[in-house]
């Protein structure tokens, strides 16, 4: 039978089948033995753990019993400290014993039968929850009525600044006051209180209070009060839990390799909330300086940045300090602080961005970025998010330019169907598309920061705009053209319609249709208040770009035609003397003479004073009353009168307009000030005081270092700094923003702003601003005389 081919095949088949069965059998046997071995090891581990913990519990009980007579003996002989020491040791032994008993009764048996996840919450999360529990709901008798208009109903764990946090109910009067401020539906508030009797120090109080007025403008603070004994401020309260606790829970519910898709989206959502808050802070001229998971409160689905402890105006003239939290603080900040730089000499927003990257890292990794910018994300994470974290935590000058830029990148990842398919090259920051949120309407992204602060209630229009914005974001980058500049000089660029999740080939621009429709290009995250074309009605990205190119080409053609026309006219004029129109030549000659006379007269009239530009209401008027040199705005003034204060211009006491007026003197000049400059400014300020003016702000601190209400001065300055934002003294809108601020102030009549000269030139720049006028100039010498002269000239506007 075997001799036949069929028989041989059958035998071979049986042989192969036998071999396969044997291999499978061996595999199953090995697996079964391995499993059995693991089971045995598991049981042995259980037994050893049970024995170990039982013995440990017995040992703890023995030691606790030994400690009892020691405690009693020390009580008897009056050694209270020793008694307390032994008491603490006794308490620790009892805790250890309880823990061992728990493991023997619950922990190990549950682990033995594979129910370790059941006890995980008890063992890991419960201690954290207990540690974060607030204090007593009922305040002690001494706390009742301690804040007028508020009833304290509970407390929150305090931070590192030493302030105490209370949850309180405002009364009807307070609620009405908040409504007048535009903040409605305040049920409860958080009051942060610093009391000298509770251990807070004056520097802590000053640090907390310096940016408070600016925070009030941002809607983060409802009220604040400073008395001789204490300082407190009230903020809207939204209950929630810290991002640290949320992160722990998310990782507890995810596989060990990292967050699952659901929690990954939540994590990215929290990061975008944080960046929106930071964007608001930065636009308001503030630097949070202590961004970390513990300072982020998660309320339902959104995250709120809290704690004003270190908030600093970006333009502050104070020296940079190293405050902040390790791992979330850029080491560069420490280096700069050690060099003694001032806050306004660096870009504080970059340090907030580093911290935002570190926060995102810690959410993804459930750990601190211990290696700084070189920290590596080892858990499950999309490449694009990894890139965003690195970009945020990289070197200071290579970091994201703004919170808005980082936010835009994150939103692209968040909007994608599968974040893992988004490549770093798909991010807007990589493709050169710059989207800014600077013009976003205030209520939409108003900071929900502060201590827990609720999101503002949007008006119907804003809600509609927000819905459109979210729709646009949800549509994602599918409709956003991806521009890549190929040649820096000519500006040539390539276009790719970014389709998240598609292959590289799909991202190439499609062929052009013969008649491209003209559709305005829409940037989803920019100018959200404008009408946004629904995604379905939009033209393809490539079509939009083609349309834009067509419009640009049309403009170029029109410009070319204009230039050609002009050139043709010019060439006709250059035709030669015979072609010249004698009447035209005579007319030009008369016009030239007239122009010379006009300029000469103007120069004569303007001799004697520095040149200056005044802004009267919305019109800009150039004044030339009696300038010493016929210079334009911000030109260097070289006054004709040397020396000092015996100049008639310096004597301001004769001016009745200055009496009882308040001048706020703000200074961007670094400290310590040069002795000569300081002397002249002190002379000027003394003269102003002699003339009957009240001096506030930096000027008050300059002439009265021991000033009693320094906090008020700092607060006033912080508000003005926040209004001024990043604007330089010579920027075009500096005058308008300061004058708008001044218009709301009853207590300030004039602002004198001093700043270093531009480009490190000698001398200083200054601006005097009243509610009607603004004069600014640059002087190299005789500061007191020149500034006094300017004040004399603008005094009539007071």
């Amino acid at each position, binding site marked *: 039978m075997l001799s036949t081919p069929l028989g041989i095949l059958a035998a071979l088949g049986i042989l192969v089948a036998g071999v396969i069965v044997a291999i499978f059998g061996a595999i199953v046997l090995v697996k079964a033995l391995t499993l059995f071995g693991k089971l045995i090891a598991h049981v042995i581990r259980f037994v050893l753990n049970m024995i170990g913990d039982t013995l440990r519990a017995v040992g703890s009980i023995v030691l606790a019993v030994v400690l009892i007579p020691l405690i009693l003996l020390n009580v008897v002989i009056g050694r209270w400290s020793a008694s307390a020491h032994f008491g603490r040791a006794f308490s620790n032994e009892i805790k250890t014993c309880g823990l061992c008993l728990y493991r023997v009764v619950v922990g190990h048996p549950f682990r033995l039968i594979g129910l370790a996840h059941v006890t995980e919450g008890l063992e890991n999360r419960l201690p954290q929850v207990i540690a974060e529990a607030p204090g007593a709901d009922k305040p002690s008798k001494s706390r009742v009525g301690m804040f007028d208009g508020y009833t304290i109903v509970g407390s929150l764990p305090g931070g590192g600044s030493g302030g105490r946090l209370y949850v309180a109910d405002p009364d009807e009067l307070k609620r009405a006051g908040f409504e007048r401020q535009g903040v409605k539906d305040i049920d409860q508030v958080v009051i942060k209180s610093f009391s000298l009797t509770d251990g807070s120090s004056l520097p802590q109080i000053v640090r907390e209070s310096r940016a408070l007025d600016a925070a009030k403008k941002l809607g983060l603070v409802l009220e604040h009060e400073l008395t001789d004994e204490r300082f407190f401020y009230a903020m809207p309260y939204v209950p929630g839990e810290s991002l640290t606790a949320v992160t722990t829970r998310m990782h507890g519910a995810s596989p060990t390799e990292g967050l699952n898709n659901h929690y990954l989206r939540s994590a990215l959502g929290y990061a975008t909330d944080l960046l929106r808050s930071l964007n608001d802070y930065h636009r308001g001229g503030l630097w949070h300086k202590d961004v970390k998971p513990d300072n982020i409160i998660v309320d339902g689905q959104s995250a709120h940045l809290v704690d004003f402890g270190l908030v600093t105006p970006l333009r502050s003239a104070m020296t940079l300090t190293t405050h902040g939290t390790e791992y979330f603080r850029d*080491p560069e900040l420490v280096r700069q602080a*050690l060099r003694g730089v001032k806050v306004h000499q660096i870009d504080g927003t970059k340090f907030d961005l580093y911290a935002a990257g570190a926060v995102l890292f810690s959410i993804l990794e459930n*750990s601190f970025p211990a290696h700084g910018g*070189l920290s590596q994300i080892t858990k499950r994470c999309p*490449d694009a998010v990894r890139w965003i974290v*690195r970009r945020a935590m990289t070197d200071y000058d290579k970091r994201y330019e703004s919170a808005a830029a980082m936010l835009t990148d994150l939103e692209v990842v968040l909007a994608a169907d599968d974040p893992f398919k988004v490549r770093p090259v798909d991010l807007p920051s990589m493709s050169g598309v710059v989207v800014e949120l600077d013009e976003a309407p205030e209520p939409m992204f108003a900071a929900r920061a502060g201590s827990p602060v609720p999101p503002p209630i949007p008006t119907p229009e804003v809600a509609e705009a927000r819905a459109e914005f979210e729709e646009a974001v949800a549509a994602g980058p599918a409709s956003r053209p991806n521009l890549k500049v190929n040649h820096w000089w000519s500006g040539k660029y390539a276009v790719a319609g970014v389709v998240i999740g598609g292959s590289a080939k799909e991202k190439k621009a499609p062929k052009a249709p013969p008649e491209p429709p003209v559709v305005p290009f829409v940037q989803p995250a920019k100018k959200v208040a404008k009408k946004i074309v629904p995604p379905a009605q939009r033209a393809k990205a490539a079509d939009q770009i083609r349309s834009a190119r067509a419009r640009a080409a049309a403009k170029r053609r029109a410009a070319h035609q204009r230039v050609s026309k002009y050139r043709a006219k010019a060439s006709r004029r250059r035709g030669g003397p015979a072609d010249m129109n004698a009447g035209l030549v005579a007319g030009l000659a008369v016009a030239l003479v007239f122009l010379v006379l006009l300029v000469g007269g103007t120069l004569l009239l303007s001799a004697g004073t520095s040149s200056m530009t005044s802004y009267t209401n919305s019109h800009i008027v150039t004044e030339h009353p009696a300038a010493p040199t016929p210079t334009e705005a911000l030109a260097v003034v070289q006054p004709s009168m040397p020396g000092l204060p015996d100049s008639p211009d310096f004597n301001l006491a004769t001016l009745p307009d200055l009496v009882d007026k308040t001048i706020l003197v703000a200074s961007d000049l670094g400290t310590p000030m040069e002795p000569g400059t300081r002397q002249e400014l002190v002379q000027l300020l003394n003269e102003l005081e002699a003339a009957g003016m009240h001096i506030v702000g930096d000027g008050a601190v300059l002439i009265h270092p021991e000033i009693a209400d320094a906090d008020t001065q700092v607060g006033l300055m912080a508000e003005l700094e926040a209004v001024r934002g990043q604007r330089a003294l010579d920027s075009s809108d500096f005058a308008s923003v300061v004058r708008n601020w001044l218009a709301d102030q009853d207590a300030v009549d004039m602002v004198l702003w001093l700043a270093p000269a531009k480009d490190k030139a000698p001398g200083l720049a200054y601006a005097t601003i009243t509610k009607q006028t603004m004069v600014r100039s640059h002087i190299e010498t005789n500061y007191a005389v020149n500034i006094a002269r300017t004040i004399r000239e603008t005094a009539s506007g007071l």
Partner: protein
Amino acid sequence: MLMQVTTSFIARLRANDEAAWYELWEVFGPVTRAQLTKWGRGRIGVETVRDLSQETLAALSNSIDRYDPARGARFSTWMLAIAKHVLGDEIDRRMALKRGGGRAATELDETWMAACDGRSVDRAYEDGVFRSKVEAAIRMAERESDFTDFSIYRMRVFDGKPGKEVAEALGISEPTVSRRLAKVRALLRIKLAEVITTYSFTKEEQEEAARNGLDLNPNAESDKATDGPFDEAVAEIYHRQLELRRQDEAAMLDS
């Protein structure tokens, strides 16, 4: 023989340049803490370790004027001797307090220099110091590189991604990835040479890089045979430093 950079760094330390001290702290803080933890295990807690590592640098600042490089001690050994002294001082202080006496702490003096004979030094610590130097060089290279260039190096060498994957992620060609990689590698070699020179006082210390597979010759950038081992060595050191920092952080969290 001391190189110019080394002497200028010492000069900065001697001039109490806070930035130089912070640099020293950043570079050698973790390894000093690890060593103090090892020595003081069971006797001192994490917080004390942190305090002592700061005290080590403070003691370094007080004794910097008395340091004599001509005696041939390694920088790392010298610092270790100070750390050992600071720890011993702490233990002495505790014992003195336990006895109830007001025994003064041991004075810091040049006797450390005699102790720096290089024989009693813990090998693991020396390796840790060397890795700290490499880490400092990586940070310097990061600071001076273009962000994308350094990211490419990071993805290729530290994350171990293939060139093709990196090229796809960044939308560039593979030759561009190789070119940018080589650029960062060359810079890293230069920075490594700088750092090793700065923090090495002896010739033997300066030759440490070559012994660890790091060819520091900047002219060898075109030599592909050395690039692979160089990258591998850098990646290994980077990951071991990550582990050290992770342990440092875990100890802090446990406390």
